[in-house]
């Protein structure tokens, strides 16, 4: 038989064995050491999430990474390295930590309530062994004065014949429990947001709009418990978008102001309201928020066929490729009698670089030009609307156009660069857990501050001796920190001064 805490020997009865093992497992899980190791594991487990590209934030970079590393990439993928924060092993660590946390705070709360209901502890027999200890001469009133002093300074006091015991700083433990409890609440709020929240990305060209429905979103991420039919039926029309940029200096071209004017309809039939939103200042519609996160240009292209019939006339979203908004886009017309396609580069401030070719040198439209390539052949229907696979197509011409200019192709078609509009990248998000998360966060800060800045401590004053009476003042910190030394000194000095 051993006396240390070890798993129960298998010789004990089978039912007791299982229960014993469970008890041992639970005790190990809820011990401080396990919590500590789980905390360090959690930190370690987060690191790959910042080393490898993540699907949640940059899915296209994950694809690039796997293409660039064909041997190790798929293995990393199998291990969940591209989706660390949704990986089962990451979840295992934080769920174990949560269980450990709950297993720690429940008994601690019970214990703390017990402490509150009992009077302060008895004075230890040898006060001189306490970390903080002072002595002073005493008279018959010393204990009364000590009691009065302690009560006046809001200690919880227990008075006996020849000693006084007092405790203070219960808010330290309150803060400690509040912090750990609200940390759990915070995780619950995050989970609620994940289950009931949704977010969508939309590209809106000036003059057009979108409604809060699935078909209108370019991409949509929803929690498991979201009914996509019940998404807020608002509509937003982007009337005007303005962007200003740094005109000179080292940071020339850096964005300075983005602003969008919109007409908002809260629900079908409601009045239209003009609102402005910008980065850091989202639209709030019926519990959802509409954020401005980016912008670009959409050239207006008009295509006329050989018979003079307009076969295409629209603003086409060109995706920015660099900080100066060199933007690329395509037009695909696979359904024409003679299928036709355009690839283009839109340059807000165009120059022809001897090495890089046509490139934009400033993000604002100071000298906008559209560089087009025209193709016929088997134009693929569907697929990515921003790119064109030109293999199997015949290039039938290239041209550079300024707004208002037209291009007559050899096959009789005419392409006109009518003008251009801005588009805005918009994120629409709905997170029903966010107020809950905010409240929990505020309490987390409050709790952790109380726990770390307040100190729980005990002091005792004891009168000893027969002829020359001595008062012993001693203290013990229950939470770490040196405040109890100041307390003990303060009490001793007070007793000494009042005794004179």
């Amino acid at each position, binding site marked *: 038989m051993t006396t240390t805490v070890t798993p129960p020997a298998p010789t004990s009865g089978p039912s007791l064995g299982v229960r014993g093992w469970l008890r041992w497992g639970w005790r190990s899980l809820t011990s401080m050491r396990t919590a500590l190791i789980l905390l360090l594991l959690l930190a370690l487990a987060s690191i790959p999430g*910042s080393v490898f590209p993540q699907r949640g934030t940059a899915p296209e970079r994950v694809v690039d990474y796997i293409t660039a590393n064909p041997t190790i990439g798929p293995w990393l993928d199998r291990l969940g390295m591209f989706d660390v924060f949704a990986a089962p092993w990451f979840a295992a660590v934080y769920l174990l930590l949560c269980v450990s946390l709950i297993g720690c705070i429940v008994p601690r709360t019970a214990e703390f309530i017990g402490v509150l209901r009992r009077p302060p502890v008895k004075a230890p027999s040898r006060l001189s062994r306490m970390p903080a200890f002072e002595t002073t001469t005493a008279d018959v009133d010393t204990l009364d004065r000590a009691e009065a002093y302690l009560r006046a300074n809001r200690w919880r006091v227990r008075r006996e014949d020849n000693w006084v015991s007092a405790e203070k700083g219960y808010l330290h433990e309150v803060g400690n429990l509040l912090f750990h409890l609200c940390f759990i609440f915070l995780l619950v709020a995050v989970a609620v947001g994940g289950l009931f929240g949704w977010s969508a990305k939309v590209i809106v060209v000036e003059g057009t709009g979108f409604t809060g429905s699935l078909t209108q979103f370019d991409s949509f991420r929803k929690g498991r418990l979201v009914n996509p039919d019940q998404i807020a039926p608002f509509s937003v029309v982007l009337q005007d978008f303005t962007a200003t940029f740094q005109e000179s200096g080292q940071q020339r071209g850096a964005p300075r102001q983005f602003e969008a004017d919109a007409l908002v309809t809260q629900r079908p039939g409601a009045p239209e309201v003009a609102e402005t939103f910008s980065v850091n200042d*989202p639209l709030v519609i019926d519990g959802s928020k509409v954020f401005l996160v980016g912008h670009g240009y959409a050239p207006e292209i008009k295509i006329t066929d050989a018979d003079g019939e307009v076969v295409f006339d629209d603003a086409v979203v060109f995706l920015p490729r660099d900080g100066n908004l060199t933007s690329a886009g395509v037009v695909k017309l696979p359904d024409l009698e003679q299928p036709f396609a355009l690839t283009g580069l839109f340059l807000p401030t165009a120059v022809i670089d001897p090495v890089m070719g046509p490139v934009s040198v400033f993000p604002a439209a100071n000298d906008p030009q559209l560089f087009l390539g025209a193709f016929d052949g088997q134009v693929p229907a569907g697929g990515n609307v921003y790119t064109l696979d030109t293999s199997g197509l015949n290039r039938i011409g290239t041209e550079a156009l300024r707004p208002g200019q037209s291009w007559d192709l050899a096959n009789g078609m005419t392409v006109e660069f009518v003008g251009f509009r801005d588009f805005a990248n918009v994120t629409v998000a709905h997170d029903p857990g966010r107020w809950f998360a905010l409240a929990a966060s505020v309490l987390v800060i409050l709790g952790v501050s109380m726990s770390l800045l307040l100190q729980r401590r005990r002091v005792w004053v004891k009168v000893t001796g027969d002829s020359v009476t001595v008062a012993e003042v001693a203290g013990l910190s229950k939470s770490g920190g040196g405040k109890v030394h100041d307390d003990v000194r303060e009490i001793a000095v007070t007793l000494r001064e009042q005794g004179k």
Partner: protein
Amino acid sequence: MAQLSNLMVYASMLVYTLALFLFAASLAARRVPLAAKQKVLVGAGGPQTVEADPGDDPGRRSGNIALSLSWLGTILLTIGFVLRGLAAERFPLGNMYEFSLAAAICVALVYLIAASRTDLRWLGVWVIGAVLLTLGLAVTILYTESAQLVPALKSWWLVIHVSAAALSGGAFTLSAGFTVAYLLRQRAEDRGTTDKGLASRLPSAERLDALAYRTIAFVFPVWTFAVIAGAIWAENAWGRYWGWDPKETWAFITWVVYAGYLHARSTAGWKGRKAAIISLIAFSAFIINFFGVNFFASGLHSYSGV
């Protein structure tokens, strides 16, 4: 005005350099073990040392001059920081250069205020060294011309979130200094070699451990606040309060490892040296978050201007 700001920053670096030399001289000259002047905790078995006459300590004078110079350097640096804000007509926290200035001011101020309450002249070399290193990086590779903010940073949360982060950086640096000193001193105490070398000029390991803990106990709520303020801002700018952006991930790692340190201090078998090492790991996570993430990871926090 931006040029005047640069001038002030350079002037402060000059003054700090002088202070650094004097701190080093003070440390080298200090022959009296510092423990002698610490208040010995009452209780049997404590080291009974005789209080030394302060006049005996040849390092005292240069240490005091170094402290005064550090104050002067900090004032110059603060003027430079304020001028930088006036030049751009905004709060000067818009890029890594400005953030580094703020962090340097915070490191220096946290140290100088702490030093006015208790004798910390022995720590001056570490602190002013860290300040000079930060400023050196700032004026060389991080330097960015004074300019307007990008739209994403135009928010009051910038001031709240970034100044809380800078203050945390200051206190984390200070605590790392205490912790390194603690490890040195503890080793010397274990070997019984506290009478020679650098360790003889340091306070007792117990005191260093307490100083390190107190600094982290003060800063951990501030850092918690900085992270949460960042989350609130992110919710208002990007549509989600937490998205595991690299900066967010490393802020989380820093927080978790410091939380680990706080738990380690009250776990049997982890007190002392192991806890100290956890605290240094946490500090490296903070440094990775501060410098590394901006240079090696691409994410939403790419405002460094570099």
